């Protein structure tokens, strides 16, 4: 059995190094495409050998690293990670294609960073050792930081630094939590270990309830900021907006916060001293983010900024569904991550295209683009519909599962989230109508529709949105398996 996980983590990093040494755009993009495609193939292979009926980690790899601290090189994927890896593996080659014809300074660095991010993010999804997990977790910051600061918009430096430090602080707090868990377990068993499943399992035996809650909250904070959830979202709008299109898409691929929520938080939740408090916290954050993000998106003038805030709103469903603690809601939340990844990629690609061809993203300055950019319009309308939760598209599956599932335990918070639905529809349609429909704004000069590469990449993603919206089971089943496993834990604790 070949170490397929190590391969999908390392290949992007290796190709990133290669891309760095290319001289021209042509070479760089080819290298990038090659790397991402290989990862895609491996991932597809892995997907078809993945047993979605069991909740355990599969394709595990284990090797000693720093025994005196109990640090190991431990990889593995389960039904939570698999879809997210798939998401990254699918979108990134398309992203490379999307940027195929763009001209930008130092393309070699650009593609290197894309690949590096892929490697780091997949690394987070596969790591089963907290040390490794944290390493990759931090590693995702650096390429994105460079991405924003080199190719970003007018306020790129401010945005980049803000994003970097803000999320770094969160990671440090998370690190504190990890330490706490690490040593609590060490003191109990006398042997150091940073193995994630092992530590999660040890968590329940920790004596002091206070310690448990502190550890839990510290970790939760780390994840919540990355998701990001109200009120820790303020890094997001700047970062997403200032980043170049590819950067924004990479940000969207960065689903590590939610992943941590499912992989680490939920299995621990029933064993905290005050589970109901924790659930309430998550539920409040989630539902408020949904509503709050929607209102803010409604009040934006800049298309891309609007999309960024809508992302806050969407990710609220993830937190809410996780707090719902019903197999349907939890898997719905997982699916929301997957769907949000697909949808937002197109959203940001569209913003990028519009900005590059018209030179503005202010919604009121646009108008009537549908006449000049029919291809883009078709894809955008589909995506916007998906984003506002139209049935038959991925967004709906996720949202309805989250809402229906969570209502069982948290009716009030679901009501709050439901209020947001109309608002969500409102800003999506408002943007569509102002930007794409109506009379063509002559001031925009000549605009050109998306080129063949862009059409291809956006089209494929759009088709996936449709496909998974009609037939979610290929990923939903494995999510269901894992969430049922998690929920069964809750049941044993009677939460």
């Amino acid at each position, binding site marked *: 059995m070949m170490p397929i996980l190590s391969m999908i983590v390392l290949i992007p990093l290796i190709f990133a190094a290669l891309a760095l040494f290319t001289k021209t755009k042509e070479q760089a993009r080819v290298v990038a495409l090659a790397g991402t495609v290989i990862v895609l193939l491996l991932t597809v292979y892995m997907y078809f050998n993945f047993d979605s009926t069991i909740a355990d980690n599969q394709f595990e790899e284990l090797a000693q690293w720093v025994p005196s601290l109990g640090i190991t090189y431990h990889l593995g994927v389960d039904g939570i990670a698999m879809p997210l890896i798939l998401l990254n593996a699918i979108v990134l080659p398309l992203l490379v294609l999307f940027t195929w014809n763009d001209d930008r300074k130092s393309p070699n660095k650009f593609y290197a960073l894309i690949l590096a991010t892929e490697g780091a993010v997949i690394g987070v999804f596969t790591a089963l050792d907290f040390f490794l997990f944290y390493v990759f977790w931090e590693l995702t910051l650096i390429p994105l930081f460079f991405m924003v600061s080199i190719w970003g918009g007018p306020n790129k430096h401010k945005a980049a630094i803000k994003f970097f430090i803000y999320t770094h602080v969160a990671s440090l707090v998370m690190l504190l939590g990890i330490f706490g868990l690490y040593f609590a377990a060490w003191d109990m068993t006398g042997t150091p270990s940073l193995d994630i499943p092992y530590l999660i399992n040890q968590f329940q035996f920790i004596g002091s309830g206070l310690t448990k809650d502190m550890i839990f909250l510290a970790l939760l904070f780390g994840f919540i900021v990355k998701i990001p959830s109200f009120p820790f979202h*303020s890094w997001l709008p700047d970062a997403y907006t200032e980043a170049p299109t590819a950067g924004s898409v990479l940000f969207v691929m960065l689903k590590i916060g939610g992943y941590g929520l499912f992989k680490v938080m939920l299995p621990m939740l029933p064993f905290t001293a005050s589970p109901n408090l924790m659930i309430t916290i998550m539920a409040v954050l989630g539902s408020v983010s949904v509503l709050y993000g929607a209102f*803010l998106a409604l009040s934006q003038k800049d298309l891309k900024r609007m999309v960024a805030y809508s992302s806050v709103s969407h990710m609220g469903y993830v937190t809410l569904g996780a707090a719902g603690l019903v197999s349907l809601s939890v898997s719905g939340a997982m699916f929301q991550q997957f769907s949000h990844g697909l949808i937002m990629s197109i959203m940001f690609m569209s913003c990028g295209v519009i900005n590059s061809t018209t030179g503005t993203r202010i919604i009121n300055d646009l108008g009537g683009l549908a006449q000049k950019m029919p291809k883009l319009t078709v894809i955008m309308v589909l995506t916007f519909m998906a984003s506002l939760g139209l049935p038959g598209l991925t967004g709906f599956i996720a949202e*309805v599962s989250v809402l229906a599932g969570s*209502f069982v335990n948290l009716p009030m918070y*679901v009501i709050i989230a439901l209020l947001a639905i*109309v608002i969500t529809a409102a800003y999506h349609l408002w943007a569509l109508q102002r930007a794409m429909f109506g009379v*063509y704004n002559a001031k925009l000069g000549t605009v050109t529709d998306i080129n063949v590469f862009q059409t291809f990449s956006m089209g494929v993603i759009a088709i996936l949105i449709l496909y998974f919206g009609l037939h979610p089971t290929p990923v939903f089943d494995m999510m269901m398996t894992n969430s049922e496993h998690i929920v069964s834990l809750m049941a044993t604790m009677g939460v």
Partner: protein
Amino acid sequence: MAVGDLAFLIPVLPALAFVLTFFFGKKLPTGGAIIPIAAIATSFVISLLITLNLLANPEEVVSQSYSWFAMLNIGILVDPLAAVMLTMVTFVSLLIHIYSTGYMSHDKAPSRYFAETALFTASMLGLILSDNILQLFVCWELVGVCSYLLIGFWFEKPSAATAAKKAFLTTRIGDVMFLTGIIVLFSDLFKIFNGNVPDGVYILRFDEIFAHIPDLAAMNANILGMEVSHITLITLLFFGGAVGKSGQFPLHVWLPDAMEGPTTVSALIHAATMVTAGVYLVARTFPMFIAAPDSLMVVAYVGAFTALFAGTMGIVMNDLKRVLAYSTISQLGYMMLGLGVGAAVGSEAVGIALFHLINHAFFKALLFLCAGSVIHAVGTHDMRQLGGVAKVMPVTAVTMIVASLALTGIGIPGTSIGTSGFFSKDAIIESAYLMGETTGSWIPYILAIAAALLTSIYIFRLVFMTFYGKPRTDYGGHESPASMTIPLSILALLALVFGGLTSKIFNTFVSETFVNNFVNMNIHELATLGGYHLAEHAGEEPMLVLWLPLIMALAGLVITFLIYGLRIVNMDSLVSRNNPIYKLLYNRYYQNAIFTNFISVKVIYEGFAFAGRAVDRGFDWTVKWFSDLAIESGESLRQFQTGAVQNYATAVITGVSLLVILIKVVMEVLQ
């Protein structure tokens, strides 16, 4: 093999047609209209066959389910209720597609038009076929989007784009209620199963739902101090959805604006099919409503009020299509009323309402198509500029008049002579009377009667102003091509005779919907759950009751003839801005000002959203404050580094002495 096995093709074919037309339509003549027409024709044949088959042997209900995800499924259910709807929708859609080949011939993007209408047809059929509430909601949303796309078909017209958005958002409000209903229902059933649903059980399937109605009725929710049983809550939420879709008060505001779309679209979506989805929803889940009499009562009142309310606005509109739009709203009100009376007549109500739905589909589609044909020919909506069109367009004029008669429901009570509207509408009004008798609430009946008068006033006003007399402006104009007039004639025929032919069988057929192998419910048990008893069918109403609707209709005809035909009454005093009532009606009760300008723009957009923005700045500022704090303190702290070496020495010494003291102090504290 049984014809029922082909049922799945009914929505699938138009869906395929959509895909084909969307990608290849441009290359084909008339925007590839032939593809959807062929597909829908086939669907029509299949549905017709299934319907006939059901008529012959009613137990052959088609029911197929496949797992979708988790404990949810997609499936097909064709029982009488669904069958008649299918037949009607496929039929009307077919005719309108044919008609459109003529009507849209001058348009620049016909292929997009046909693709979207095909998609709409597919989703509408899917909605009707659903065997579970979630799939119904899915298609429900899809038709909503299609209507959004089609209203905004001429998107370069800002008014069209705005209308499309408004339609979508307004119905969305209803949809959210519907969704909430589904969610509540789901979590209730989930609790009933205590969280572990066995494989193969799809908890949102109608049979599951109906099977658990007693449990649902047992659950109570406390809302604002009121004890409401969950069944009532859920049904009310469903009805909320229906209100949005079927343009009932107060969510009717979008329907008149929706006339921005092509007239054919108005005919297909905003008259015949989509807007009736709300009625269909209530009919579909009727067993639940039966168990929730309060909800039924709400349905009845809202329906009756809407019927009248819309009528009042219908009489002052000067736009052909707007008049028809208000008429549609009012007729939908009738249908709702027809269902609401279920509290009195039980499952017959479904039959009555559905019958009116079908008839309405025919004559209202016809009305719109006639209007379309006029507009197509003379190119204006404004009745004040028309007049005497009958001379130029005889066929259109005749069919239009037939349709109007059907709408007003002219016919001779007691016999089976009369236009189709006569049978269905009067049946509704009568059962409303019956309901008054049994439950003592007469208001719906009174409203319905009043609405009948208004109906005939606004429609004949339209007829006279448009077709009678001499032209007010010199519009050109010619009779429309055959592709348009033939559908008109077919519809006219149906509008004339369909009711008379089918009235008997239809009711019994559809009323049997909920008694078959798929779901077998005892209507009386459900009624007792709701804590009341159905009227054992009270035989005849007094003569007056039978004749009153007709009298009203004729009265309306006479009045309008006097005013607009012979012009012996001068309207100018009435029809003027300084007449408050006229003003109120003409401004449509200022709904626009209230709903659009005030609530959505002022309160939500400017109010909440900007408040949110301020809050967000707050968060941002807090974060920034921390970083600034660090930097600023850095700035002030570095001042200690004076650069004079003596100060350095001083620092060292002070440090030493301070440390000694500190250690002492801390030691003291620790001990």
